């Protein structure tokens, strides 16, 4: 075991917040038992519900304020609505939400294209920074991407040729 140094004078503020009675520590340090009364809605004005807000079925109401950043929409929104039928205790709540997130990514690309915007995925993934600080890795990624694209093109070309070969063989059989 290494020897514990006993002189902490080089550490500014050493021990200044030491509290031998800090147990139980936060978060139950200041418990009031107010929870014993159950949920009581504080006297707060309610934010108007101007967009669709999904709320957990583990509470009876909307909170007094809520975010409005991206209301559910499209196929991902349908999946999210389904997920919110189940409590936070259920995989049926969380796993569909993860699925909806991935569907939402595709929706985002389609939405971009529908608005005439071709997403610059290279830039969105921080390609410029990668080129500057991780050139070898960036070149490797580009090479792998090119390899995969070439492989996919070769496969697609083969598939498109396949029916012609089949037709030729069929003709040959007919002639025989």
């Amino acid at each position: 075991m290494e020897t514990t140094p006993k002189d902490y004078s080089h550490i500014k503020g050493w021990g200044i917040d030491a509290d031998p009675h800090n147990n139980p520590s936060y978060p139950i340090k200041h418990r009031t038992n107010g929870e014993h009364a159950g949920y009581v809605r504080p006297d707060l004005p309610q934010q108007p519900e101007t967009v669709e807000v999904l709320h957990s079925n583990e509470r009876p109401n909307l909170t007094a304020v809520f975010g409005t950043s991206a209301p559910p929409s499209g196929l991902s929104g349908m999946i999210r609505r389904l997920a919110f039928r189940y409590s936070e205790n259920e995989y049926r709540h969380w796993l569909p939400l993860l699925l909806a997130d991935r569907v939402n990514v595709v929706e985002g690309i389609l939405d971009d294209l529908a608005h005439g915007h071709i997403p610059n995925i290279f830039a969105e993934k921080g390609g410029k920074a990668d080129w500057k600080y991780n050139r070898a890795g960036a070149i490797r990624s580009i090479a792998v991407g090119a390899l995969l694209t070439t492989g996919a093109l070769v496969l697609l070309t083969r598939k498109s040729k396949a029916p012609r070969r089949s037709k030729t063989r069929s003709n040959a059989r007919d002639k025989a």
Partner: protein
Amino acid sequence: MLAMNYRGPYRVRLDRNKPMPEILHPQDAIVRVTRACICGSDLHLYHGLVPDTRVGSTFGHEFVGIIEEVGPDVTKVKVGDQVLVPFNIACGECVFCKQEMYGNCHESNPEATAVGAIYGYSHTAGGYNGGQAEYVRVPYANVGPTVIPADMDPDDAVLLTDVVPTGYQAAEMGAIQPGDTVVVFGAGPVGIMAAKCAWLFGAGRVIVIDHLEYRLEFVRNYAQCEAYNFKSLEDPVLFIKKTTGWLGADVCIDAVGADASGNAMQSITGKKLLLQAGAATALHWAINAVKKGGVVSIVGVYGPTDNLVPIGNMMNKGITMRGNQTSVKRLLPRLIEHVQAGRLNPKGIITHRVPLEEVADAYHIFSAKLDECIKPVLIPSSARA
């Protein structure tokens, strides 16, 4: 206005036409952002690990700025005030806020009861837009926003919105006794700050474990502690047992969360296959490295489903585990004192100051640990003028 725009895992961009936020509740304020950090926990969103992270959202829960507009019921701040905004959205009135559990407010997040509301942190955390933008809506403006002391550097202030209080609360929840050995897993911004704050509670020895040499070197100097690379240790838990006289650390802090490295099975099931809520490697090590009767303090963020950890050892060893989203408002008065007294130097961890327009590059640099990045701060053009 300009705002960060999430497009999917590992894809973000600058949106030049995001609609301006509006007052939607009498206690709302609109803040013009002057600094916004990217947090290590933003990377969990960026990596697609947090359910209900919707395309089009703006991230950012660490920001400071100037009050631009207030709702009719806002009395504690006024237009023109320079404020730091705690990352939790808290009403100040519910039963949890009244116990100073501002990170567990029950009146700000309708979409999950297990999670308080956090700016720009998915719909699981309330669906609010975040501060990686020119302007942001700040609900319950009588509770959260705190006027920045005139003598405080805004770079210090922006780190008081999350990193400093989270590191401090990690140490506080460890219930450190004078002379205790404290092991911090993770040398990211929060781990660095947890190591620094452990001394304030009288730790006798502080050890940080990570795998990035530049961060280990940084934390050795910044937090005056020991730091070890788990890649060079055969088994980090065994190492901690040996170096603590075979009994284990008094306190272990998980300052990593869902994006941990170090265990292939955890990484594959947690980060690649999403069969668990992220890789729980750091928490696994913390439980196994702490002494019998010791304390494990968790500030690393995990998703809401579940994780593989040796919970049986928790029972057998009599471990106390504490964790929580940080109650920033509760800690601010003390932490402002520490900064003003020079006991804490938050801005010392900032390594990158990036224009908001280059948000995609900033995320990639931070995520891929390029250019020895420890803490990036985004600065909107309006704040640079």
